[in-house]
């Protein structure tokens, strides 16, 4: 189970710590070589939950086994981070970076320290510098995108998302996120873009309810914009209706006793449709 969390990159620290406490403390030695991986994982999870006692235990075990490992040193630095002593953590990261210029994870930790300390703009500058070197790190592009969104700089956020989209044009979640940002920016051209990418997301995965709602909203918006031509209005009403029906079907399929919610969805679809027709 722990292996599954590790492989899926799931952040379920609470559960990891629990599993460790309940069944692993006494049986650590039975795991063979996997033991060290588990120690690392539990250590990270413990830091996440601020269980310094467990983190310390894992860390000393790892240190004993791998006294010179930079991976263990990184964990030690993260322990400093979680205790709030960012400067000591940065000092360790500095020395690690000195040893290995190309280590991307160390640089990312430094950026995350800036983020944690509330210096978002500094984090953005650092992350931009990082991306100049590691252009194909799409997780980093996503992170930069989120940072820009938190700074309400949607134009730059959408640029980052375009990079991510280029990396994998078949991921419906990327299309949907990009459309979300364009929609948030809000002009009529952005709405058109948003609608196009929501459609793409729906085409790639017809179960993406967010994209379905997005398609409905953006199409309704374009249809009700005073500047739209008659033809454009007619097309967009058609798209909105289609999306509305799809959403309606989704909810009806559940066929639950949950009437208030069903009604809430219908009310919303109706009221917006009304707005577009008029």
């Amino acid at each position: 189970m722990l292996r599954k969390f590790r492989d899926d990159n799931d952040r379920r620290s609470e559960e990891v710590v629990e599993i460790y406490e309940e069944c692993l403390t006494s049986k650590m030695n039975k795991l063979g070589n996997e033991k060290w991986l588990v120690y690392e994982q539990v250590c990270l999870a413990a830091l996440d939950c601020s269980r310094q006692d467990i983190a310390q235990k894992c860390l000393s075990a790892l240190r004993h086994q791998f006294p010179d490992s930079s991976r263990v040193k990184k964990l030690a630095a993260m322990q400093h981070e979680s205790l709030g002593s960012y400067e000591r953590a940065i000092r360790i990261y500095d020395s690690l970076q000195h040893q290995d210029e190309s280590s991307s994870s160390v640089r990312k930790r430094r950026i995350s320290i800036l983020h944690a300390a509330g210096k978002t703009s500094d984090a953005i500058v650092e992350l931009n510098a990082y991306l100049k070197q590691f252009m194909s790190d799409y997780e980093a592009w996503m992170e930069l995108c989120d940072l820009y969104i938190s700074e309400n700089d949607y134009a730059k956020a959408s640029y980052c998302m375009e990079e991510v989209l280029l990396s994998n044009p078949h991921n419906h979640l990327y299309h949907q996120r990009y459309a979300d940002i364009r929609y948030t920016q809000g002009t009529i051209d952005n709405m058109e873009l948003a609608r196009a990418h929501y459609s793409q997301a729906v085409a790639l995965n017809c179960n993406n309810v967010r994209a379905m709602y997005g398609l409905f909203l953006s199409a309704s918006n374009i249809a009700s914009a005073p500047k739209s031509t008659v033809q454009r209005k007619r097309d967009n009403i058609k798209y909105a209706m289609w999306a509305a029906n799809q959403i309606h079907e989704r909810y009806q399929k559940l066929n639950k006793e949950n009437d208030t919610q069903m009604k809430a969805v219908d009310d919303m679809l109706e009221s917006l449709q009304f707005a577009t027709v008029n």
Partner: protein
Amino acid sequence: MADSVVLNRQSYCKILLHVFKYPHCALNGLLLAQKQKGKESKPPHIVDTVPLFHLNIGLTPMMEVALSQVDAYCRAKNLVIAGYYQANESFTANSPDLVSCRVTEKIAEHFGDAVLLMVENDKLKSEVENAAFTVYSVHDGKAKKRDVHKVQVQGAGTAAAITATLLATKQHWQLVDFDNHLDDVSLDWTNADVCEKIRCAL
């Protein structure tokens, strides 16, 4: 303009469960109050909350979806959206950002006494119930800070105790927010199950 806000135990518990379900995310939600005929009640009395998002709270489309659905739900239940709560991602950041102000100002257009409740991450640990929130209110279309002590939790002692029990039985993993709902529309964002558990624990 009311200068304090009352939370009942259920809404208090649900906010905290939401925070504990996603401790590493910025998250937000809506505060619902009973609809009053004629003059609005003073202070606003929050009877329920709807947990909204934890994935990305800075984007508008799904917010619009959520707001209009919750609004329709409120109309059916004779409730009204009376405010908004938010917990920031960073442990030490407790002040409202542009998004939270915008949403609260929007709510204030329909409900004059709208409040913005910021969860103070670094105070959550302590047992003091009321201090974990700061309240902001809307004056002339701008969100302004209020006196911290004006947040009252009904039966604060029991509310904290219930939250502790629910956390111990892992109920926070059962709590559904609007993001969960959009991932799987069969999940219920009104959280009837969790509310029932809270009522049983009373």
